[in-house]
């Protein structure tokens, strides 16, 4: 199956990245793997599109990056959450919850 462009909106991808990194620092490949595992393969990530998002978040000051030795012994660029990033994640989670609750309410009404 040819991989489609990542279907979920940018903001959501950002949120997922932040969430993933809130557990522990990781490099790009690991993040991609984790996203796929956690979403139980329902979300097909076009892996390359992860990187513009990572760099954007880094520029915003929500992530910071450094080259470190990885589990395989090779050097990899590890991303971790900054304090601003943690705050941002909290804000986005709250927003997301409000949004989904609202959408759910509307759906329920229709039933």
């Amino acid at each position, binding site marked *: 199956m040819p991989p489609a*462009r990542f279907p979920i909106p940018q903001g959501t991808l950002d949120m997922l990245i932040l969430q993933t990194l809130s557990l522990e620092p990781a490099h790009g490949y690991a993040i991609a793997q984790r996203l796929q595992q956690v979403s139980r393969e329902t979300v097909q990530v076009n*892996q*390359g599109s992860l990187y*513009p998002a990572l760099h954007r978040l880094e*520029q915003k000051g929500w992530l910071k990056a450094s080259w470190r030795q990885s589990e395989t012994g090779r050097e990899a660029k590890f991303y971790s959450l900054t304090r601003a990033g943690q705050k941002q994640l909290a804000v986005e989670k709250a927003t997301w919850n409000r949004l989904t609750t609202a959408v759910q309410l509307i759906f329920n009404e229709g039933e």
Partner: protein
Amino acid sequence: MARFLNLLPWRRRRLEQDLDRELRDHLDRRVADLTRSGMSDHEARRQAALEFGGFVQVQEEVRETWVWRWLDQWRRDVRYAARTLRRGPAFTAAAVVSLALGIGANAAIFSLVDQTLLRTLPVTRPDRLVQLGWHGNSLSSAWGTGWLLSYPLCRELQEQDRFFDGVICRHPTAVYLSIGQQHDQVRAEIVSGSYFSVLGVRPEQGRLIDPSDDRQPGAHPVVVLSYTYWQRALAGAHDVVGRAVLVNNAPMTVIGVAPPRFTGLDPLDAPSLWIPAMMKKQATPEWDRLFDRRAVWMHGFARLKPGVTAAQAREGLQPWFASMLDADTGREGFPKVTADQHRSFLASTLDLEPAPGGLDTLQAAVKQPLLVLMGGTLLLVLLATLNVAGLLLARGAARVREVTTRMALGASRGRVTSQLLTEGVVVALMGGALGLLVTPLITRVLLLFLPEGAELTAGLDARVFLFATVISLATGALCGLAPAWQARRGALTSSARSQVSVRGAVRLRKAIVVTQMAFALVLLIGAGLFVQTLARLYGRDLGFASDRLLMFRVEPDAIGHPPGEAAEVMRTLVRRLQAVPGVEGAAVANSSLLTGGSPRRTLTIQAETRVVTERSVPIMRVGPGFFAAIGTPLVAGREFTADDARDIETRGYRAVIVNERFARRYFGGTSPVGRLVGVGNQPNTPTTIEIVGVVRDFNFRFVRDDMEPEHVFFPFAETGPLAGNGTIYLKVTGAPESAAAAIQAAAAEVDPRLPLLSLRTVGEQIDRVLRSERMLATLSSGFGAAALVLAVVGLYGVMSFVVTRRTQEIGLRLALGATRANAIWLIARDAMVMIVLGMAIAIPAAGALRRLVEAQLFGIPAFDGPTIALAAGLLALVALAAAMLPAWRAASISPTDALRLE
């Protein structure tokens, strides 16, 4: 802001490498995983690439986040700043206007500095040009100012091709130019044949003067017109080449037109035409001496050979120069001088100075004042900047809550900083734009104070625009820095409890006010010095009665009267003018008072022994009744009579009048009347001229200095070529302005075609001479006043803020029994500390800056106690008055109201 750094090439390279490494690492890991699951290496690579998507496209998208995000943020910052600024229109207007004035004034002065001082000549490799000068005593008579050389020496310098790629000489003068029906008195440059080719200037029309025009005196009647004159007087006629013209009534032919940008070697004296040196006799009919080695009148310039430095050329030419000196002493006609003078002559050296901008000596008059003003406007801009910074800080304090909230919501410290900086920059750019609108107006005012002929313009060009932009950006950054710093501090305390950061902000604002006080005081001291200088110069006794004294030049020889007739016109004119009602006295002289230069001659004096004047002495030729007309009394002897002025052509001078200093210097206490002198310093110089009078000292050349204080006066000849033009002086009884019409009518009776050139009162001439002093006094007063207002507004702002913040405290104190005087003192003390601190900075600073202004002052030291005291007193008075308003408000706080605020 940091994002912007990503545009820097080295930073950019690192980011690229990093990204490449990161993406490859990802692919490698995927390939490794896939092969482990059993795929062939080739298959795994294909699969990994497929999953990854376009490698190049990903790279491109990542790159965009580095740069575009920054631009995007910046755009958002600007929009945010604009919104904030729109919400406080009064603040914005005040900030923009004060910055506009500062930046506008700065750009105006920069445009003049740029046009006069920074520009190089529009010639080939101006950086290779040097000016040549005789350093030492040349035992010569001089015509002109600055470094002067004789024409023969100029020719010999042209042979020094070991160091030079050519040597040029020039002499500025005024000539009467007639083309068809057009008659003008215009500036001209008398030049060596090498002039245009060495400079590398190409003709706009026809050809330029070249070495073939430099062969035989009187044999090269050709002129080159300036582009401006061609356009102005001839409307750019294309048949200009070959036209016949009259230069001082001598027929010559136009051979070409110079290119538009080339205006001669003196940026402040643009000629309308160029005349070959060989035509000197026609160009300056009063004197020739083209081949006289002891007549210096030309400015010499050389083009250094590639690879040769000025120092090498100076050193390398010394042996030749020394042998030239030695040969000169043996020549026929070398002056008979004392052993001392002989020694100092032989010790002369040839000096070389880089001259990429052409003649520098005349620029000196403009350079220093402009640099002083530039310094003044920079201080003013800083003051305005500090004011805006203070205002932004005040608003910043009010916005602490906003900033803290934004940071709590996740805005990074850098974002907030960059936002505040942007606000400052936006204000400053608005100020700069408005400033550029007023710049041409300010420049136009400044031009009134600068010499004419400089062809300076008030327009804006790319360089002025760039300068204003740079100043605006710097100003903006400075404005924004203080609030940004404050925001950082606010962030450190990291809570909406803003007490700490407010206290920090107050301290910062107080520091700003102290700096403002210091700047304002420096500018006020400067204004005081320049105003007093001007007052002293105007108050100076120049030795003649300048009120009701008119003068104008007439040059009958230049409009076609042959020499004998021209002298007759002059005589008739003076006689006719003496009969005009309201004219008390009329006399003629060779030159106008206070116009700078004068011819100089060395004299031989027959006293107890025969002595030669140490330097050449400035001379003036004056007609009978001259001293009575200008109101300078004789202290001994008599004025010239008509008899003294007769037959000078054939019999030479018989009478001379000397000034008091000359008498004192060469005759000690004894009266020189009846003693004999001769013109020249050669052993056989006849001494047959009798001193007939001693006149009180007066300044006939300059207002400012009395260097070379010895002057002598010869009779203005009745006949001959020297009698064909001169300046006529009139002492009138009524207002000089009303006499002018009668004078013009009388002159028209004598010759209706004769123009009265530069008709003005001597008082007006003094105004012209003191132009740069007036400019400094006027502008520095303006700067001082503006600085005072800005500083006081700053102080008032801080004090108001302090009173508001301490309302409760003061109320409490009042409730507990403090008097209103105590309350006033509480606030006034704060203000006084700032004022005194400002002074403590300003006074030593003024001392350090004194070198900058020393040369511009007259009769007052650059570090003058009374002036400083006066300026400081004024500042303290105004500042305290401004501080009193909030202090008064503090005193009238009602304790009950204040406490109720709690």
